[in-house]
């Protein structure tokens, strides 16, 4: 009994840390993915904005969905939300609590991707290089508008033949990177302040409701784990009885059909207990054939009633 209690406590304390661990792994994976991604801006007027903003926003959506999929609690929450009421009332506060904790964890990796992208700057340079005001930069000031669009679109590509030694390209690039980093740091600061305030001010509002919601959400999680464990244990015992019953019925059938089988001393050998009356190649073959062709019914009621 002690062991089971230890396992339950392990599950209870571990559920949070498992989820936090997954959240951290996804965050690391998102940074690693960004660094290993080969960013190649197309440097063409219409494609730049689509590519730049696509790289900035599409992976975070995929990471968010991954965060929801990998979190076991999201399934638990959905089941609790959709279950029929039955004898147990549904508490919306619990469901809301679970939803908010799942969303918070799932948002970490996308936010990290966006912040890293902004701090690096390449995406914004690629997306908005055609949108800067050419008058501000000496090299682009006195060219026709179509040409200036073409030139500005090539700013992110350092190695392009037109842009290789162009000082105005560097100026535009620095300008956009400065904006990008400013945006990145501001977003990071705002989010950290928001998280700080949320954690510190939460006890001031509805602490009792929060404690209840947290308790019952942990309870629902543990209850589901124990149910699955119990089902596994039950199917193990069911299988055990079913197989023993099968061997027993085979032995009785053999005894019925083969009168030439001499009785064996039941206690003659210690190992013969496990032979269960099957002592012959033909009998073994028959048993195996019966097991394949006619599996026993899923009904061990007469075995349990003995």
């Amino acid at each position: 009994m002690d062991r089971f209690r230890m396992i339950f406590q392990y599950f209870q304390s571990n559920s949070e840390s498992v989820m936090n661990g997954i959240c951290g792994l996804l965050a690391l994976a998102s940074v690693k993915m960004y660094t290993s991604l080969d960013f190649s801006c197309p440097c063409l007027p219409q494609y730049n904005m689509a590519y730049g903003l696509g790289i900035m926003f599409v992976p975070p959506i995929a990471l968010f969905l991954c965060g929801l999929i990998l979190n076991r609690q999201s399934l638990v929450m959905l089941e609790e939300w959709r279950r029929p009421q039955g004898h147990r009332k549904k508490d919306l506060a619990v469901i809301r609590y679970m939803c908010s904790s799942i969303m918070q964890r799932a948002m970490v990796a996308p936010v990290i991707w966006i912040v890293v992208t902004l701090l690096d700057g390449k995406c914004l340079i690629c997306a908005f290089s055609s949108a800067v005001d050419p008058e501000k930069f000496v090299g682009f000031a006195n060219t026709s508008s179509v040409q200036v669009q073409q030139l500005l679109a090539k700013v992110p590509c350092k190695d392009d033949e037109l842009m290789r030694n162009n000082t105005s390209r560097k100026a535009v690039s620095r300008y956009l990177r400065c904006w990008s980093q400013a945006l990145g740091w501001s977003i990071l600061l705002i989010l950290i302040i928001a998280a700080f305030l949320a954690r510190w001010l939460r006890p001031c509002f509805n602490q009792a409701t929060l404690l209840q919601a947290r308790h019952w959400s942990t309870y629902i999680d543990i209850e589901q784990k124990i149910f699955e464990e119990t089902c596994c244990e039950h199917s193990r015992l069911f299988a055990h009885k079913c197989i023993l019953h099968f061997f027993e019925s085979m032995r009785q059938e053999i005894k019925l059909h083969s009168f030439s089988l001499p009785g064996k001393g039941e206690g003659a050998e210690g190992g013969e207990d496990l032979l269960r009356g099957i002592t012959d190649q033909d009998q073994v073959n028959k048993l195996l054939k019966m097991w394949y062709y006619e599996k026993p019914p899923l009904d061990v009621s007469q075995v349990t009633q003995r």
Partner: protein
Amino acid sequence: MDKFRMIFQFLQSNQESFMNGICGIMALASAQMYSAFDFNCPCLPHYNLAYGLGILLVPPFILFLLGFVLNNNVSMLAEEWRRPQGQRGKDPAVLRYMFCSMAQRAMIAPAVWVSVTLLDGKCITCAFCTSVPVETLGNASHPGLSQGEMKRVLARIPCKEIYDGQEFIANEVAIRYLCCISQALGWCFVLLMTTLAFLVRSLRPCFTQAAFLKSRYWSHYIDIERKMFDETCAEHARSFAKVCIQQFFEGMSTDLVTAHCHPPRKAPADVGEAAEKLLGITDQGSMNMALKSWHRCKPPLHLHPPTLPSGNGWAGEKQPPMHLPAPRKEMAAYYSRV
């Protein structure tokens, strides 16, 4: 034994996280395989498309099949599908559940390969370099080249060293364009896959939860039953072999006694186990004969009762009455081993 049972239960109940771990490992292996692979675009007009699309599509198919081959539960699914009905009905929902969960796990490595390939860009660049829009990206104003010649020139885009079409379209421009398209396709594919996975996982509790619980229970049951049957058969085979060999040695010992015509030396009662285990064979000649006989003429697979009368006086003529406590005793024996 308790500890093993606990670990077994923990793994069983944590089967989800165990299988997720395996999926993660296969995904990493697939990404590693791609980075270790040496991509060599042929840079010839018709071969490019075949090579590029082949590298994009053939390894995922192989990885998908490998995912099925390496999954132990495939044989379980096949057995359950093909078995005759007998006394136990077949539930197609259980078969569907087993197949779906196996297919989902097998799809992860191919999806990772396709995503990594598209995000890297080399495959699409190789496959579609002859379809680059030269009019918009470069200047197609050179009338001297026929279609075929143009295609030949464009096919060399991925191979920078031999590219000779710089005046039609710059190499970097074409490669950047194709990489951009490839990465866009890659991210769309990733988004599509994660959305599908999310929908599959989250719509299930909304619609078919009861049926799902039933299918999951019975598929676990079939797995456990199969393992337990194998265990029981192995135990039976062990006991069978033990008794068979003991009877062989006893038979040999009796033969030797009759052949050598000296009375059996009954071991004194207090000699102990060692003498019993010698099974009546106590010299080199007898042992050699026993070994030769084992090789030349293995005993039949038919256990007979011991010829010496056993303690309760049965000479083995009639069947002993079948008494009820015996099965319970056997069950207790089985439990105590566990």
